[in-house]
């Protein structure tokens, strides 16, 4: 194998030298020469730059592309997951979105892996995602792949119930400038400037933005107070340096900062105040093409989060914290034969937290993983996906998460998938070591963890069908699943609260996605999820487990483009009755329906033909407010106008 690899590399160097020789003799550019046919090229579309076709993925997968993002009219990244069957999107406050899949939802959903360009962003100490602080503008997203079901073998630890994999626009994706301004009710005030340049060996793009609104402050049915406005300033840079045909270096920097409203009048000592959040990251990825479709990827990133949260300046009482994450990962893709592809690798991670109110001491967790997954095309009809992840949580747990999926092509456009996988969620450092205490005059311990938790274990079985019906312009994706969750970690009742492995649960259900395009420019995406949940334990202080997620959920997005560059889209989001596990009866979420509409017109704004667009979005068109997670969060109609230009 080594020799084989070596030969590949040699061949590569030779071809590059040859290219130089042949192009040396290239003729004046006013006529073609043989070098147009004989020149060699770098391998551009390597495995890591291509998305896996849905019909061959080892899990059910939902893809949200740029067109859908635009049509949806959403201005918050978290809202996009309403377009995933079975995914619950809500808000703990106007600046704290919640995204979770298949229940066990509380205000810090932590049973999903969330990645941006391969950077894992579920952060210590809780293991939740801080969507508002994320240095990511919705307009910089290329596509989102949501893996529905456990996929630890491919995406690392914490990939228990699903994986959100956000892919941002390539460094060389744009050339020129773009600017947009959004204004609307509810204090909506966003602006973005973007610039990009493609070069021979260096591509880059830069975005600057501000994103702000007043959360649920605009609530016309005032319930208590909603101190949940936010103003976020964002900066992103992405560069790609590709000095030769085989190496490329991707650099990313991101920064966000701004005030967020927090606290409420009846929540001592967390009275209404502003906290100040800062987050930044740096990431570098070296991709080396080894020929024959093989590649080597080495990636390092650093994430820094700081929340300055002074609850009471006079005392002083602080709930501030600082987190960092450093992660190094090596991944090697090898085609062991024309019908077999192996991806293996290893990673090391160091998570550090300083949170004086939550832990007596600074917390450092060093974790490591070793992973491999294999895709074997046994016959043109059968494909076998196997994989496993071995991880050391750094908190005393070592787990092996295996996965197997068998894919059968019934006919050229019809695929069946059978999958079984086991995955673990390791306890977060907070669940394992929390000591949430405020000194006098509060002098109260909210949480005191005794630790030694077992990891949560999920065994998932599924049957999937994917069909294409080109004669009707339709595709259908159906998934039937059964998940067994064991040793779910939940808080105890009495203060100081502890975290224990308290209960097991079963989830089973069906998810359906269909896409249909017809006529000129009509596109309809329809999602439906049905889920039944049960648990062996009824915790007296938690809501009934079977009702913690809606039984039925529907989302649909219709879009239409007319020849005169007028676009119309309509989003429909329906959610059955539910009560989140950690909420009381007053926070019951009733059956809700929400309709969003977007209308836009593109036009040329100057003689050079530069494009401009004006778009109007109305969210919750009917104007009937609905409850988001907490009864105080009543979502009212929001309308905003976005004007953008590109030159």
């Amino acid at each position, binding site marked *: 194998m080594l020799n084989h690899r070596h030969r590949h590399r040699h061949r590569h160097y030779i071809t590059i030298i040859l290219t130089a*020789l*042949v192009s040396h003799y*290239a003729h004046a550019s006013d*006529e073609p020469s043989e070098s147009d046919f004989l020149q060699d090229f770098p391998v*551009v579309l390597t*495995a890591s730059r291509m998305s896996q076709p849905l*019909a061959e993925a080892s899990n059910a997968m939902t893809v949200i592309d740029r067109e859908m993002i635009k049509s949806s009219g959403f201005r918050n990244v978290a809202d996009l997951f309403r377009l995933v069957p079975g995914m619950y999107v809500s808000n703990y406050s106007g600046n704290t979105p919640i995204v979770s899949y298949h229940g066990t939802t509380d205000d810090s959903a932590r049973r999903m892996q969330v990645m941006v360009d391969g950077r894992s962003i579920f952060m210590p100490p809780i293991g939740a995602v801080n969507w508002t602080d994320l240095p990511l503008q919705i307009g910089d997203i290329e596509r989102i792949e949501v893996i529905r079901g456990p996929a630890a073998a491919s995406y690392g630890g914490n990939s228990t119930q699903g994986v959100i994999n956000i892919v941002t626009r390539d460094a060389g994706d744009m050339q020129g400038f773009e600017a947009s301004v959004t204004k609307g009710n509810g204090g909506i005030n966003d602006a973005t400037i973007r610039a990009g340049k493609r070069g021979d060996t260096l591509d880059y793009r830069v975005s600057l933005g501000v994103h702000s609104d007043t959360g649920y402050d605009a609530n016309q049915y005032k319930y208590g107070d909603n101190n949940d406005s936010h103003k976020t300033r964002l900066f992103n840079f992405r560069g790609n340096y590709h000095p030769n045909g085989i190496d490329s270096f991707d650099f990313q920097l991101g920064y966000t900062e701004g005030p967020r409203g927090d606290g409420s009048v009846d929540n001592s000592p967390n009275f209404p105040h502003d906290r100040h959040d800062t987050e930044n990251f740096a990431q570098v990825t070296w991709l080396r093409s080894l020929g024959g*479709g093989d590649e080597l990827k080495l990636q390092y990133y650093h994430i820094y989060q700081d929340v300055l949260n002074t609850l009471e300046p006079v005392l002083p009482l602080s709930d501030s914290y600082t987190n960092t994450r450093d992660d190094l990962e090596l991944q090697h893709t090898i085609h062991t034969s024309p019908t077999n592809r192996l991806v293996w690798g290893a990673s090391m991670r160091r998570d550090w937290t300083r949170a004086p109110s939550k832990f007596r001491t600074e917390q450092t967790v060093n974790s490591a993983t070793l992973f491999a997954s294999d895709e074997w095309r046994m016959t043109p009809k059968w494909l076998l996906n196997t994989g496993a992840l071995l991880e050391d949580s750094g908190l005393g747990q070592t787990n092996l998460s295996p996965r197997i999926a068998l894919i059968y092509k019934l006919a050229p456009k019809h695929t069946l998938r059978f999958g079984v996988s086991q995955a673990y969620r390791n306890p977060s450092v907070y669940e394992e070591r929390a000591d949430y205490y405020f000194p006098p005059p509060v002098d109260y311990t909210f949480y005191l963890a005794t630790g030694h938790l077992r990891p949560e274990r999920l065994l998932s079985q599924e049957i999937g069908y994917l069909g294409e019906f080109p004669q009707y312009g339709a595709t259908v994706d159906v998934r039937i699943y059964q998940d067994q969750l064991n040793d779910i970690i939940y808080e105890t009742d009495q203060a100081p609260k502890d975290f224990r492995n308290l209960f097991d649960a079963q989830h089973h259900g069906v998810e359906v996605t269909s896409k249909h395009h017809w006529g000129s420019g009509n596109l309809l995406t329809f999602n439906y999820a049905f889920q039944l949940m049960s648990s062996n334990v009824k915790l007296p202080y938690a809501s009934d487990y079977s009702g913690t997620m809606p039984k039925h959920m529907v989302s649909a997005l219709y879009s239409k483009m007319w020849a005169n560059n007028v676009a119309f889209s309509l989003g429909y989001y329906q959610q059955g009755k539910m009560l989140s596990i950690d909420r009381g009866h007053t926070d019951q979420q009733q059956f809700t329906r929400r309709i969003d509409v977007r209308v836009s017109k593109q036009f040329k704004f100057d003689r050079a033909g530069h494009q401009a667009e004006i778009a109007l979005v109305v969210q919750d068109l009917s104007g009937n407010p609905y409850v988001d997670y907490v009864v105080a969060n009543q979502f009212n109609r929001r309308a905003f106008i976005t004007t953008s230009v590109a030159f």
Partner: protein
Amino acid sequence: MWLQISSIAVRLLRPQWLFKLPYFLSTLLCLALSLPVATMADNLRVLVVLSSNAAPYQAFASAYTQNLPNTMRVEIQDQADSYDRAQKFDLLVTVGVKASQFVATRTVTPLLAVMLPKRSYEDSVLRTSHRKEISAIYLDQPWERQVDLIRVVLPGVNKVGVLHSAAMGIDTADLSKALSRRGLELGLQLLKTPDALFVNLDTLLDSSDVLLAVPDSEIYSSNNIRNILLTTYRRGIPLIGLSQAYVNAGALSAVFSTPEQIAAQASAETLAFAQTHQLPEPQYPSLFKVAVNQDVARTLSVPIQSAEMVKLQMDSTKGRGW
């Protein structure tokens, strides 16, 4: 040769020759048939002039000489500018644009130019040359063959996008005809300035189902190919390339002729020339290969067979005639 004939004479003197009559007759027949060609081939002096010593030219030269009888006098010169007209040859085979241009203006010896695009041959070799016996085997593929490839690998597409620059003067009328004969439509986009490449590409892709690469170094350079492929990939639009290198880089498929395939055709023409002292009309390569990037096909959800199957289907299409 003389040795062979004298041995036959010796055999004729022996009484047992009658038993070997069939062998004798067949030997005689072979001799009768091979004698003129062998004699003329033996006498033919061929000079192969390469544009440089780069691998593709060398590959042509070695395949070309291997295909010819050992007895033929074939000389290889791997630097075009060291060509010396004082040396006398019966046929010159020039490989690539540079060698063809250089030699064409300096001699009136019959010339077969190979491995150069049709347009380069017509514009800068044929025009500058003042001889009767001149011909070519192009490197590019006939439009019909490329259209066939598109029809076989992407049966569902309608609109074929072509991005080209004015300087390259692609024969768009012929391409358009070839496409419409097979029920396809041509979408053309002219590259106005090099800076406008990706703006023009985006515009073209808005209304294209597939992008067909053309030999145009202003567009398909090794610097641009990365962002061209990433752009088409993001848009879910396959690229049909011009070579194996395009397919390796990420193009869905390509039809092309290797130096060895062109050498086979050139050596056949050389043997014919030995007999007739005439060269055929300029030709496209008669032999070709197909390459397919299966990974790209899968990720673009294009149901595609192996390169061999695609080639077979193209051959059968050709049988029906276009």
